[in-house]
């Protein structure tokens, strides 16, 4: 335990406190606001492109006063030949080293064949396969338990399709807000909501609602499949009929 710790603590509490002047925080805030405003103003500041004629004038001036034109860098004539000779020597030595025959070692094992690349994983891009130009059946590569034949790489095609806006609008129809009536009323624990027939109809309504949402998501923003849009409409009719039955029971 420190000596006279109590005295020290008392003395610390009696130390005077200093408050910053009131304007200090105000000034700091102003400065921060200024910097922020300045940044946004700088972003909005327009940029000006010099008129095209200016570049023509500059090139005319340079033509009239060649001493103003930038001087090309000149290397010493000897350096070129030295550099060329060095590069030639380097290329010659690399080539000699690569092509020199290696002495055979009878006891040395043969290098293993290169590993066959792994199959593409589920999230990888579609595998690129080496093209095979032969007309006969393509050869087979064995990869562990998997066998697949070589096939040409994927081709990209571009074309245009025209879709009737009526199909698109049918796929974008918003849900009728009346569908939530049943949910709201059953939250009040009406006795009819516990009846078996009501529950059965409600379950079928919920099933149709799920199917409706699934189909709407599958159609996307630009529904171009008339059959699926027709099914969407049929589901909607079925939902309306069931809703009417449910409301009648309530």
């Amino acid at each position, binding site marked *: 335990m420190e000596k006279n710790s109590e005295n020290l603590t008392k003395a610390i509490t009696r130390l005077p406190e200093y408050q910053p002047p009131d304007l200090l925080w105000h000034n700091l805030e102003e400065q921060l606001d200024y910097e922020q405003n300045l940044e946004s103003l700088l972003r909005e500041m327009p940029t000006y492109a010099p008129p095209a004629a200016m570049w023509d004038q500059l090139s005319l001036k340079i033509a009239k006063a060649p001493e103003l034109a930038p001087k090309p860098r000149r290397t010493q004539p000897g350096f070129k030949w030295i550099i060329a000779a060095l590069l030639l020597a380097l290329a010659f030595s690399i080539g000699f080293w690569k092509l020199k025959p290696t002495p055979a070692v009878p006891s040395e094992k043969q290098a293993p064949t290169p590993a066959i690349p792994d199959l593409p994983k*589920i999230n990888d891009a579609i595998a690129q*396969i080496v093209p095979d130009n032969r007309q006969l059946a393509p050869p087979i590569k064995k990869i562990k*338990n998997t066998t697949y034949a070589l*096939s040409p790489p994927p*081709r990209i095609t*571009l074309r245009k399709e025209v879709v*009737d806006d009526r199909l698109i609008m049918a796929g974008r129809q918003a849900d009728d807000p009346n569908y939530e009536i049943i949910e709201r009323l059953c939250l009040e624990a009406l006795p009819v909501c516990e009846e078996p027939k009501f529950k059965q109809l409600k379950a079928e309504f919920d099933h149709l609602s799920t*199917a409706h949402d699934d189909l709407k998501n599958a159609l996307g923003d630009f529904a171009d499949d008339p059959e699926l849009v027709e099914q969407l409409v049929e589901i909607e009719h079925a939902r309306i009929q069931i809703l009417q039955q449910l409301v009648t029971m309530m």
Partner: protein
Amino acid sequence: MKKISLIVFLMAGCGVGCALAQTTLQVVGKNIEKSVPWKPGLELIVNGEKADITVIPTDSAYISISAELSAKHPNLDTAQTDVNTWQFIVTTVGKKIYLRAYVGVLAGKRVPASNMKAQILIKVPKNCPVNLSNRFGRARLEQLNGAVVLSGYFCRFDLQELAGELHIESEHGSVEGRDLKGLVDIRGKRAELILQRTSGDCAIQAEYGTVHFSTDQQTGNVRIAGQMTDVTLHAPDSITHNYHLKTHYGDLQVPDRFDVSGSSDSERNATFKTKNDRPTIDIETSFGHIKIKQ
């Protein structure tokens, strides 16, 4: 002259209006071709999404696959970006050959804004068993002898001249089958089922759908169980089968030669007996109608 001008003006306006009622989509497609060797004992399993799949026979010993994976959007750049989200996997594991086409989005990336569609043509040896599941699309299979198992959600199935065993589960997708020679087992929910010229035995379970079944001398035993399902039998010659028909809380329309005794308000029965060695058509529905058309 004024009238003619007015007519021409109105026609021009209609033309412009019609032109404005269409949207042009840029379609970017990726065409892929693959080939896989097949031998007896191997089964093809196809898993598709937003795909139109056609499976037809080939005399080759290879399963050949050609696919166009496309993305459609008014903006070409968006379509080009989205087409690369297609994942197309063909792999063999043991005795199963897997083919999978789906839209795969990496974590943190946006979901494709384009309409995605896959058109897949598969040529298989006739005896190759096929197990196919698809969502939001179509599937057409024809002239196959191997067993076929189909599963669909908003997928329409068109089947023709299938000789092997056939098992189908379809929800919100119609099934149309012609000249099916093997055993047929169908479970449909909110699906329209249409069968013509079936040769083997058929078992159908249907909910909230419709069944149109055409029988003839080649048709085997037929059993249909339905809930909230209307069943229509097209029977040009009813002497070829024995009939047991029953509907709870539904209507029954049968030819006069049928025995309808034993019916009540809530349950209607109809039977017809010919010879004991003839196949039987057994139909029972709840809250659905049974009709025989000749």
